[in-house]
């Protein structure tokens, strides 16, 4: 699958939808609840995850995998948890500022 900046990805099994903020610098398999994510326009059976352990994926949070360089923004939340080549992908620290505008 071609992962480029702005690409929209989705979990085939749960409600998670992602937008690519930064594409990976090396090939990586991005999974949600253990299932490889797909192009958001692709067929999504939506059966849910057999194993929904983990934190799930939270809307508005950025997830960044240091090894591969991929960073995604969660556009729709869901119970599945993201992993890159099996590594759990951590939330990138938010830096909220005092409201300037």
């Amino acid at each position, binding site marked *: 699958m071609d992962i480029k*900046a*702005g690409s929209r990805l989705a979990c085939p099994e749960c409600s998670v939808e992602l937008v690519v903020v930064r594409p990976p610098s090396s090939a990586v398999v991005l999974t949600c609840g253990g299932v490889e994510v797909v192009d958001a326009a692709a067929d999504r059976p939506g059966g849910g995850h057999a194993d929904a352990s983990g934190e799930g994926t939270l809307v508005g949070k950025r997830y960044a995998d240091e090894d591969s360089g991929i960073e995604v*923004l969660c556009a729709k939340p869901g119970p599945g948890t993201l992993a890159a080549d099996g590594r759990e992908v951590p939330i990138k620290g938010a830096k909220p500022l*005092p409201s*300037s505008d």
Partner: protein
Amino acid sequence: MNLSLLLEMSASTLEDRPAITSGSRTLNYAQLDAAARRCAAKFLSMGATGVVYCGTNDASFPIAVFGAAYAGLPFIPLNYRLGDEQLQPLVEANRGAVVIAENAKVPGADPDMVILRSTILDPSFAAVGDVELPPFVDPEDIAIILYTSGTSGTPKAALLRHRHLTAYVIGTVEFAGAEPEQAALVTVPPYHIAGLANLLSNMYSGRRIVYLESFDAQVWLDTIRNERITQAMVVPTMLARVVQHLDGSPADAPNLATLSYGGARMPLPVLEQALELFVGTGFVNAYGLTETSSTIALLGPEDHDAAFAGDPVAKVRLGSVGKVLPGIEVEVRDEDGNVLPVGEPGLVFLRGEQVSGEYEGGSVIDAEGWFPTKDRGWIDEDDYLFIEGRADDTIIRGGENIAPAEIEDVLRRHEAIVDVAVVGIPDDEWGQQIAAVVVVAPGKSVGVDELHTFCHQHLRSSKTPYRIEFRDELPHTPTGKLLRREVLADLLG
């Protein structure tokens, strides 16, 4: 990442939370999103190549901004106050774009491409059948074309791509982080980067925006009280008018948590009075440029409070624009490009994902990604950034660089003076001499000699104006930036 995603996320998460209030009308997030999609379909059905917006601030503005984004078209806000002869070339430069305007006759526009602004708010607008919106808008696409206010000449078209603006928003705003009762009052014009950045940030944070079509100090204060505004943004001239209007009485704005200002240099006396009158409100100074997708540095409420409490270091820093945002790098360089150490003034360069530095016709970003702001400034030992003003405005007298702002700040402290401009005038002996043009407050009077003495008390003699003139008013841009070239032309003319 593209701009429409910011609204799409808020609409699917916050749904019926109020998003936009203008006049007696409030749209929630789902309604705003639906209206923007309808608008996008309409634009595409008209074969538009862009969306020109030539109007004031109301709910049609966010609908048009996000409509353009959903359609994958650049949004091009123009100053609706421009005269026909100035507006026409800008409209003609964007042939093929739909033109959203107050009335059907827009100079330079194809009448078939004009959409009346009032119709956008009509729920029956844009029932155009099945027009597919593009499933993918490239982050590299141009999101916004802004004609910079041009204090120094003809307007330039600055280009901001989706990736610049979204980098700014997702890097500085917590998604849906606002409490449901929060509301922001917006009075900056829609053709200013602050108005656009403000819209994107507030929509992403889930904060309701209340628009005022035009600024009036009493209406602004009434709206803050009646709409329980928690956040407001002003340009310095607006705050000056509010302070003048309050005339020493407290602002009585108990819900106002944050008052941010930017867009031009804030006169310290105005800020000091405002800090006294807005009890319990946190002040934020935001510095940025059109070419940097708005704010790149902030001076926060703690810094303002410390200065107000009398901390001498904080008092000095009240004249700074604070610290640069995470993800932004800053360098101060001399005329030859050498990086200068802490404390030394020079030319300010910026680098970061939100920095575009691009115009129609080319980018001014250098090979290492640095953008020359053309502002002069310096950084102190704790990374506070001080901006002296535009490099072009610097007066060079006998080889000494003099920032007009320093002299203006002194003159503004004189009780008879309400506005002042300091410029360099050509001089055979010194290269340039310092000239000050002052506006005297109604009912007050002051003479040249008294002002000379006043300057001598507060400034080195090399910084004391050589010539002082009086005028009834000074020329400013709509956001309050002084038009120095007009002041100079007047002096030399």
